């Protein structure tokens, strides 16, 4: 697993922070030493896709995530809470 990874945003659910086509850099370094926190923007994988969302709630090591653009986002209501093992990295830089 790379310490730094680059992702290209596809979709609008993280607007206005990320627009469709934006590129971001993430790192998994922080999560080697501490757990993800509320408000962290994380890239994570589910069975079929890689998603980018913000952590909004943490209950019993389950991370509830949501897009910033509430009118236009899939969130934990739709695919359930995620676990730390699904998180690929934390957003650190927008190109």
């Amino acid at each position: 697993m790379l310490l730094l990874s680059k992702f290209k945003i596809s979709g609008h659910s993280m607007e206005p922070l990320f627009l469709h086509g934006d590129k971001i850099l993430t790192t998994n370094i922080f999560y080697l030493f501490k757990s993800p926190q509320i408000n962290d923007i994380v890239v994570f994988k589910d069975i079929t896709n890689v998603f980018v969302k913000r952590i909004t709630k943490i209950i019993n090591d389950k991370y509830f995530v949501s897009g910033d653009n509430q009118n236009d986002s899939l969130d934990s209501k739709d695919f359930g809470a995620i676990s730390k093992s699904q998180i690929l990295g934390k957003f650190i830089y927008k190109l």
Partner: protein
Amino acid sequence: MTLLSIVIDKIFKETKACAHCDIPCGIYDPHNAQMAAHTVLRMTNLLLDIQRENETKAKHDIARMTHVKEEHGHLVEDELGTLENDYFKPEHFKTYSNLGELIEKAVKLSILVRQNIDIESSKELLETILQISEIFYKTKNVTPIRVKSVYPTEGEIVTYK
């Protein structure tokens, strides 16, 4: 883009991260992409036919047509992105082995037609979108058919029976 961003962009391999409008509504349709591709073709035709008797008006018309062409080129890309990311599943790409290639080709063409006044690429874009639309309807277990559009482009659209 800053120098740091350019360096990072060059160094790191890119992966797609989905941030979609994905309440899984199940409502997908390639029609919008087809209309957008027709619009690109129409704008390209109009740009090639522009009259230069009144230079101010010509410049004004060129600006407007280019704007619409740009907008609809983007729309093609967006609509394809929705189909690719939200609708088409791995089994679709497996069954229709050229699907990924067609989408990639259409995205490249949608950029090319924005960069240039290129009638051949515009026609190719439309044709590629039609082929993707045919695959879309096949995945819905209906028979796709091509009919002549009623648009000034006189090109075809794909629907189903």
